[in-house]
C-alpha cells in the first residue's frame, strides 16, 4: 500500500496539467523550502516544461500545419488539445494521434451549418489528418526485407502491403505538405477533392496522387483484401461490368505502376464467399448519363 505516495503523485500531476489548481498552501505544505530554488519556482519548472516539451514534439509531428498556422497559433491549439486530451501513452509518437479529430470537434465555427463554415479550417483539419498518416507510416510494420509482388503474380494473389494507407481530402493537402518540405511558402490551395495512396518501401514513404476511381478500387481492396472485390466495388460505383474494370486495371498501366511502387505483396488466393464487405464506402455511385469513368479518371 502506498497511499501517501499516490497522494503526492496525484497532487503533482494535477499541478502540472492544471497549474492554477496548485494552491500556494499546498505547495508550502508539500515541498521543502530553503534551497537556492524556491519551492514554487521549482514546481514552475516542471509546469512550464510539461507544455513546452509536448509542444516541441507536436511541432515535429505536424510541421506543415505549424507552418500553415504559424507557431503561436499552432501552440495555442496544442495547449488546448493537451488540456482536453492529456497524453496517455508511454510513447511520444502517440501524442498527435487524437489531434485531427480534436481539431474537428473543437473547430471555432462548429455551431454553424456546413455551408457556413470557414474553408481554411477544413483545410487545416485535412492537413492534420494527412500529417498524422505520414507520421504513422514512418514506424509501422512494413514489408522491408520481405518480397513484394511481381508482374507475374496473379491478380488472385495480390494483397496490399502492410505499410499502405489511403486518404481522401477536400484540398490538395499532400501537395501543400511537400511544398513546405521543399522550403517553399505555398498558398492555401482552393477547395477541391484530392485522393492519395501512401506507401512505404525501403523506409521511404511515398505519396501517390490518385483519381477517385483508383481510390474507390484501392479502398475496397484495403477493406476486403482482394483485387476481385476492389474491381467489383468500382464496377458498382461506375455502373460498369466488373470484367470491364478488370480489363481497364490491367491495360491502363495502373497494375504495373502500383506493383513498381510496392503497393502489393503476394498472398494466398481468396476463398470466394460472395461477400465483399465494401458497401460502407462513403462515395457517391456513378450517376447514369454522366461521362463514363475509367480507372484513370473520367473519360472524355
Amino acid at each position, binding site marked *: *500500500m*502506498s*497511499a*501517501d*505516495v*499516490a497522494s*503526492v*503523485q*496525484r497532487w*503533482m*500531476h494535477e499541478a*502540472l*496539467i492544471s497549474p492554477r489548481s496548485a494552491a500556494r498552501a499546498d505547495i508550502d*505544505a*508539500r*515541498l*521543502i523550502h*530553503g*534551497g*537556492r*530554488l524556491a519551492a514554487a*519556482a*521549482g*514546481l514552475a*519548472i*516542471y509546469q*512550464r*516544461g510539461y507544455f*513546452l*516539451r509536448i509542444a*516541441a514534439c507536436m511541432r*515535429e*509531428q505536424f*510541421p506543415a500545419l505549424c507552418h500553415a498556422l504559424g507557431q503561436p497559433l499552432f501552440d495555442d491549439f496544442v495547449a488546448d488539445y493537451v488540456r482536453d486530451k*492529456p*497524453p496517455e*501513452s*508511454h*510513447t*511520444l*509518437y502517440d501524442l498527435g494521434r487524437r489531434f485531427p479529430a480534436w481539431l474537428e470537434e473543437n473547430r471555432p465555427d462548429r455551431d454553424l451549418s456546413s455551408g457556413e463554415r470557414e474553408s481554411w479550417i477544413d483545410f487545416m483539419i485535412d492537413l492534420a489528418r494527412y500529417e498524422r498518416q*505520414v*507520421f504513422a507510416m*514512418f*514506424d*509501422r*510494420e*512494413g514489408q*522491408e526485407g520481405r518480397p513484394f509482388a511481381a508482374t507475374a503474380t496473379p491478380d488472385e494473389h495480390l494483397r496490399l502491403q502492410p505499410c499502405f494507407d489511403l486518404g481522401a481530402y477536400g484540398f490538395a493537402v499532400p501537395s501543400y*505538405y*511537400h511544398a513546405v*518540405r521543399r522550403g517553399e511558402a505555398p498558398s492555401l490551395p482552393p477547395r477541391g477533392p484530392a485522393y492519395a495512396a501512401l506507401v*512505404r518501401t525501403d523506409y*521511404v*514513404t*511515398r*505519396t*501517390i*496522387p490518385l*483519381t477517385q476511381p483508383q481510390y474507390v478500387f484501392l479502398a475496397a481492396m484495403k477493406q476486403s483484401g482482394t483485387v476481385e472485390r476492389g474491381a467489383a466495388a468500382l464496377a458498382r460505383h461506375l455502373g460498369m461490368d466488373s470484367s470491364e474494370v478488370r480489363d481497364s486495371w490491367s491495360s491502363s498501366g495502373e497494375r504495373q505502376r502500383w506493383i513498381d511502387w510496392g503497393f502489393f505483396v503476394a498472398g494466398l488466393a481468396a476463398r470466394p464467399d460472395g461477400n465483399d464487405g465494401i458497401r460502407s464506402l462513403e462515395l457517391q455511385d456513378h450517376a447514369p448519363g454522366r461521362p463514363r469513368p475509367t480507372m484513370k479518371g473520367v473519360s472524355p
Partner: protein
Amino acid sequence: MAAIADLPRLGLGLGLRNVHFEEILRDRPRIGWFEAISENFMDSGGRPRAVIREIAEHYPIVLHGVSLSIGSTDPLNLDYLARLRRLADEIRPAWISDHLCWTGVMGLNSHDLLPMPLTEESLAHVAARVRRAQDILDRPLILENPSSYLRFAQSTMEEPEYLRRLSDETGCGLLLDVNNVYVSCFNAGTDPVAYVEAFPCERVVQMHLAGHEHHGSHVIDTHDRPVRPEVWDLFRLAWTRTGGASTLLEWDGNIPSLGECHAELLKAEAYMTGAGAAAPDASVDGDGPESISNPVGFLVPRVMDSNLMEPA
C-alpha cells in the same frame, strides 16, 4: 539473472541520436558503445528498428528508458515491459536502465522524469516494482538519479541512501548521472561532492555526463551544450570512486555533429587519468527564456526527411 558485478566495463560511449544514424552506419566511427533510448526502438516496425539491429552488430548497445515509470502508483505497465523484453532479446544490450522517477499517474503520462518522495513507504513500493520488472526482463535493472527542482517535505532520507537501500534490497544496479547530481544539489543548496561521497559507488554500472543551463539562482538540466567545468570536476571524483564505471555523454538539444559530440566525450580521458583540471566557471547563461529540462524533442523523428511525392 546476472549480477551487476558481471556486467562489462564499456569505457566511453555516446547517446545514439537519429541525426547521427547515417554517419554511424556509413563510417562506423571508433566510438566505444552507444546508449539507445528504449522507447525510440521498442515500438518501431520501421527504420529505427532496422538501424539499431545493424548498429548492435558492430557496437555494444545499452538500452536507456524514459517511460518505465518505476515509481508510479499506477499499475506497472506490463505491455511496456513485454515490448522492452522483445527488443532486448533481439539486440542483446549490455544492460537496461531507466530512472528513479515516475512519469505519470491515473493513466496519464507527463513525459517528464518526476521526483519521488524519499520515504520508507515509497522505497518499499519501488523495490517491489523493481523486482517485478527484473523478473520480466530477466536481468538487473540499472536506475539513474534524476535531476530535480523540488524536494518533498515528507521525505525522510537523502537520495544516495535511498538508492543504496533500493540496490541492496533488489540487486539492481545504479546509473550515476554526474550532471544530475550537480543540478539537483545546486538547486537544493546542498553539496554535490558530499552527494557523490555518500553514493553507493560500488553499485554504479554506468555514469552520465551532460551540459546544463546556468541561471545564477538555479540550473536546468538541458543536455544541449558542452559539459561544464564543475561537472567535469565532479566526474573526476566519481570516476575514482566507481572504479571506472562505463561513462556516456548525453546531448539531446542543439545536437552537433557526431564528431563534435565525440570530441566532447573524449575530454573525459583527461579526468580519468587525474590530469584534467577544469577552470572554475561562474558564468551564467544570460537572461533569456529558460530551456526545457530533460528535452524530448529529439525523440521524435523528422519524418519529412523520409517522404516523397510522386507525380500522378
